[in-house]
């Protein structure tokens, strides 16, 4: 399979670029909701519009009412989300929760997927239990109780947690905190008794929850996948999240880069366009190279994931780490090359910097993923 978009994918990219460029534009969404201190951090109307576009159910199988497409297609939408800094629950709902629900019972799929596809529901995923992403360690406990489970523990960095109708929670049904086995995934509805939210606004104006699970009682059918065998599903959710966050990061990187390169062609100092200064040209060209490479790695990871390759998980970490580096470079160079106005709230380049910082942490940062690449490679 060639490593570029086929005709259908190129068409989807055009559609997504146009839709996000108009409906998802920074002024219309990010600034709008931020300036109103919106409790969700995104607009539900846009989420419904994304459903009408068919985006919400991209990864949901056709039998479940979705489009049955793959991570390449989801990545196309995410890249445009990134480029426009569009706040939406797409990554947590349509990519991560959808990947989890693919392994759920008919009943659970019937309960949750229609709302996902229609854009009436929002989903979140609760994995982290501290300030840093450490999915190898799951301490939240799920004990058998009646014919169901009782969940106790704390979760961190649950993006869109407070807006979610259902949260996919990774908990431990057996073994010690760092054991590979003994993990189980649960679909926790928003109104579950004992579920507490502390909703916090992050640097990029997105909303994330610190969850407390204080003896949350769930039926047995809340289990997604196998009891004690949830690690396999969790790994799929993580890979989907890594590759998805990478794709969004590519969009952030490209958006910031394009803005900056445009600025170099407009701003004059010393009687010249600043884009004529070779020191800036070389940095811009280096940035272009890094961003192109990060994008190639991301598309490769998407293709491997869609093809079910055994190398997909390694490449997912390569992509997340590489995008972390490239997008970080893009926003930093972006602010610097804008000079003083790059520091102003009025200019969008700073918004890219903030979004990049949040995305860099989401599903593991550069250091986590570079370390994971080393571990998977055997050192």
């Amino acid at each position: 399979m060639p490593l570029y978009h086929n005709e259908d994918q190129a068409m989807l990219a055009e559609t997504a670029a146009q839709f996000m460029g108009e409906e998802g534009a920074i002024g219309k969404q990010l600034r709008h909701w931020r300036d109103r201190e919106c409790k969700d951090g995104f607009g539900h109307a846009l989420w419904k519009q994304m459903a009408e576009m068919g985006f919400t159910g991209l990864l949901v199988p056709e039998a479940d009412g979705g489009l049955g497409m793959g991570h390449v297609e989801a990545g196309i939408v995410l890249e445009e989300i990134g480029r426009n800094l569009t706040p939406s629950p797409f990554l947590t709902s349509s990519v991560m929760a959808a990947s989890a629900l693919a392994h759920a019972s008919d009943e659970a799929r019937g309960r949750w997927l229609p709302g996902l596809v229609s854009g009436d529901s929002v989903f979140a995923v609760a994995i982290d239990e501290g300030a840093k992403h450490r999915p190898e360690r799951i301490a939240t406990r799920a004990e058998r109780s009646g014919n169901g489970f009782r969940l106790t523990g704390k979760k961190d960095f649950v993006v869109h947690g407070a807006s979610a109708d259902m949260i996919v929670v990774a908990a431990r049904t057996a073994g010690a905190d760092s054991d590979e086995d003994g993990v189980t995934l649960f679909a926790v509805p928003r109104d579950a008794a004992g579920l507490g939210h502390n909703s916090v606004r992050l640097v990029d104006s997105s909303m994330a929850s610190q969850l407390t699970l204080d003896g949350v009682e769930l039926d047995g059918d809340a289990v997604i996948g196998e009891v004690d065998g949830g690690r396999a599903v969790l790994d799929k959710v993580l890979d989907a999240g890594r590759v998805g966050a990478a794709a969004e990061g590519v969009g952030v990187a490209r958006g910031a880069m394009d803005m900056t390169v445009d600025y170099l062609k407009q701003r004059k100092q010393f009687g010249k366009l600043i884009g004529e200064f070779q020191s800036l040209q070389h940095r811009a060209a280096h940035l272009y190279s890094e961003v192109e490479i990060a994008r190639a790695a991301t598309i490769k990871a998407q293709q491997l994931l869609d093809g079910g390759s055994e190398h997909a998980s390694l490449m997912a970490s390569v992509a997340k780490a590489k995008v972390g580096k490239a997008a970080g470079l893009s926003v930093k160079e972006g602010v610097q090359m804008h000079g003083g106005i790059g520091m102003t709230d009025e200019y969008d380049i700073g918004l890219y910097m903030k979004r990049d910082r949040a995305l860099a942490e989401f599903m593991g940062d550069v250091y986590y993923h570079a370390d994971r690449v080393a571990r998977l490679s055997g050192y």
Partner: protein
Amino acid sequence: MADLDAFRSETRAWLEANCPPEMREPVQSEEDVYWGGRRATFKSDAQKAWFEACRDKGYTVPSWPKEYGGAGLSPAEAKVLREEMARISARPPLSSFGIWMLGPALLHFGTEGQKKHFLNQIARGEIRWCQGYSEPGSGSDLVSLQTFGDDQGDHWVVNGQKIWTSYADKADWIFCLVRTDKANKYQGITFMLFDMESAGVSTKPILLISGNSPFCETFFDDVKVPKSYGEGIPAQVGEVNRGWDVAKYLLGHEREMISGADGGARTSAIGAAMKRASGELDPLLRAELAMFDVDALAYAAMGEKFLDEIKVGKAHPAQPNMMKYAGTELNKRRHEMFMAAGGSTALEWDSEETRGGARAREWLRTKANSIEGGTSEVMLNVVAKRILDLPGA
């Protein structure tokens, strides 16, 4: 798809039958590389058998048309062959400037007669070529070159000096940039082909910091270059005085080649091998190796994407410059990591255990990667100007 699957299994079977086990071992030294040419010798029977099998199948240049010595593979088939060769770590059967540089230029600009004649020679490894571009006063600013060809009707008389001519002392023929109009900077250069055995051509090897001497000063002293090598086979590629277009086109392919985009050793991860070799890695070295491996594996994907796109005309025409920049900077870093992981053993210069200081010599050699074929700074200039469209670049 079904056709491609069939092609894959055929290819796999063919490689199994024809690629000797020795030819699946990593290249250890220059002798392991077969360059072809009049004076070529094989290092081993395996090297000979592998070369001949590929030559007869058209696999020295798989995507060239059959009438020019290739196998006429489609881009998708060529990719399958590349993947299958990489899967068993098969060595390239034949390496040559003819394949990487002159061939593509001839395919694009050559006459039918030139293609039939020269491309078949290249594909069959009969003639080894060298590249006469750089001059003492014209490196990055190549277009300022001074070597002059005086028009004498049915031939030119060429005088001047080239420098950094890789393998000039081993090559049979040269593709050479020669000024044929002093009044016209860009449209006064002719892309000439001639025999290095012509009277008046002499070479003087230059010693590199690696202690090897793979390149030369090349002198032309009243060298008579005939304008034609037979019916439909002119000595120049493209038109007289329009050699700059050919030169630039060729540089695109040269940069593609130096970038290592086609995978293999230059794009693979190295951390695990360093750990096996050293037993224990310092934590910070391990961290740097991990960061390197991220970049290397990401670059491998970029190489794949670039080659896929270039085959169907989707790549930006200046993209080889970006690839050359990224690929060579990465390769230099790779060898810095090798040296760091190797410690004092990697410093040995002529011991037998280090195969004559191979690691140190190769480390030094890679420093040229970001100079030869156009420097990193020049690559960045081109990307800034042609891809990012920055002003005044």
